[in-house]
């Protein structure tokens, strides 16, 4: 039996500096620094910030906490969200038009109980947990994100799967007032909207597949796909569709926006695979955000043990 005894150096919760006090102290230090009172000491301004958004209550999933997360600042200022901009820093500046509340997800198609779920209900009642996942973009960069979310299977089980439930399609909300670029489709090559993505049912039911509602302990920033998005850590980032309002379960293979834009370059599966190059660039390595050196990309983005069995017998070079 493992009996935990408090060590002399253990502190209890009361000893922890209150977040507010901590931050006030930080901002005071910053003011002092600007006034030139600070000595020649290194300063990490990152620590001076509180993460915006509403605090969420969640459990930490111990199985997924061993990675070091990328800085909050990088995760929230380097985004592909074509509904706002084609640039990486655009979404952080432009996504203020997104209204994440009220919000609901409509579940339709081959399920026992088609339903509409309200985001407030999800935040209050669903079994939220924190998982730190690798995130690999098809463009060759990567990051590590401490997501807060729940397993997609939880939602699908609520709706009730049938023998005809074979594929799941997700759709980003279509509302040009909230997502200005949705109106400008076609002119200078934005992608068609609304953005859709799909998973095979066994991929959707895999315990790794998350519906995320937050990161770094707070609700999702708008540029990261508020209020709710998909996270499929073993697939390229574009599969992890943002700001979802519709989930449609069907008996045949679903649509996928990038697959429709360019089927030669973006497959339906789009599993992270260092051995299968994008037609225009290699996928063998990746650039972790903020790092000066590339690192090797892992098969299924490092989740091979969890998901390789899903693709047994498939030729991953052909069904990429």
């Amino acid at each position, binding site marked *: 039996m493992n009996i935990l005894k408090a060590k002399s150096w253990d502190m209890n919760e009361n000893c922890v500096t209150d977040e507010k006090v901590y931050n006030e102290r930080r901002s005071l230090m910053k003011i002092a620094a600007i006034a030139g009172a600070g000595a020649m000491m290194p300063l990490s301004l990152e620590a001076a910030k509180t993460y915006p958004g509403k605090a969420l209550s969640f459990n930490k999933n111990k199985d997924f906490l061993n990675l070091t997360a990328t800085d909050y600042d990088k995760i929230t200022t*380097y985004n592909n969200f074509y509904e706002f901009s*084609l640039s990486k820093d655009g979404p952080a500046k432009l996504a203020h038009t997104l209204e994440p509340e009220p919000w609901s997800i409509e579940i339709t198609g081959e399920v026992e109980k088609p339903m509409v779920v309200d985001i407030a209900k999800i935040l209050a009642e669903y079994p939220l947990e924190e998982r730190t996942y690798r995130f690999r973009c098809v463009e060759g960069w990567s990051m590590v994100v401490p997501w807060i979310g729940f397993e997609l299977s939880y939602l699908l089980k609520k709706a009730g799967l049938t023998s005809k439930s074979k594929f799941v399609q997700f759709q980003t909300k279509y509302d040009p007032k909230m997502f200005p670029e949705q109106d400008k489709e076609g002119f200078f090559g934005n992608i068609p909207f609304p953005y859709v993505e799909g998973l095979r049912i066994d991929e959707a039911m895999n315990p790794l597949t998350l519906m995320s509602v937050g990161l770094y302990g707070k609700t999702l920033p708008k540029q990261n796909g508020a209020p709710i998005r998909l996270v499929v850590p073993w697939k390229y980032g574009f599969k992890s569709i943002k700001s979802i309002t519709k989930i449609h379960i069907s008996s045949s293979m679903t649509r996928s926006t990038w697959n429709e834009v360019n089927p030669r370059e973006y497959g339906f599966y789009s599993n992270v695979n260092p051995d299968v*190059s994008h037609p225009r660039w290699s996928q063998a390595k990746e*650039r972790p*955000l903020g790092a000066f050196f590339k690192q090797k990309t892992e098969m299924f983005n490092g989740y091979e043990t969890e998901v390789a069995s899903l693709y047994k017998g498939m030729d991953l070079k052909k069904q990429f």
Partner: protein
Amino acid sequence: MRKIIWFVAFLPILYILYKLSWGFEYPRYVAGFIYEHGGSVLGKFPNDPLKFIADLLGITAIQFLIATLTVTPLKSYLKINLIKYRRLLGLWSFTYAFMHSLFFFIADNEGNVSLMIEDAYKRPFVFFGLSAFLILFMMAITSHKKLFSKFVKWHKLVYLAAVFISLHYIMSQKVVGLDVAVYVGVLVGLLVLRLLKR
């Protein structure tokens, strides 16, 4: 004029060095001052430094190429004669193309020539980029007064380089945005002006 060109030519390099310098910890009062007055956009280490450097070097090479190619139409259509600065502009375009290529050679191909050749063979956008660079390289080494008179007709290949660079730029994108369309549009426009002149 020459001084202005040199000054402008150094700005992208200085900007890259400045952005990368944020990888080090600044003394507290310097960091605080820049954050307050320059905003976090200026005073921040790039999120994707390799891409930031490669893109900025490449774009600057294109900008100098456009400037170089604009000299002739300026003279023939608007009677503005900047012909004596054309060589300098062209050499800066080459210099940035060289830094851009060298950067890829080191960061992407690990300084391995056979990897680079394989890359160029397998990926059309690398092939076009590298071919354009070789044209600029040929022009740079024959831009000296003595050689130039012998090689002047070969310098017309710069228009082929412009086509290759346009293809290279378009093919490196996931989606062709407005900025790419403008640069390529200008390059194609200059090519058309040149063809009309014949």
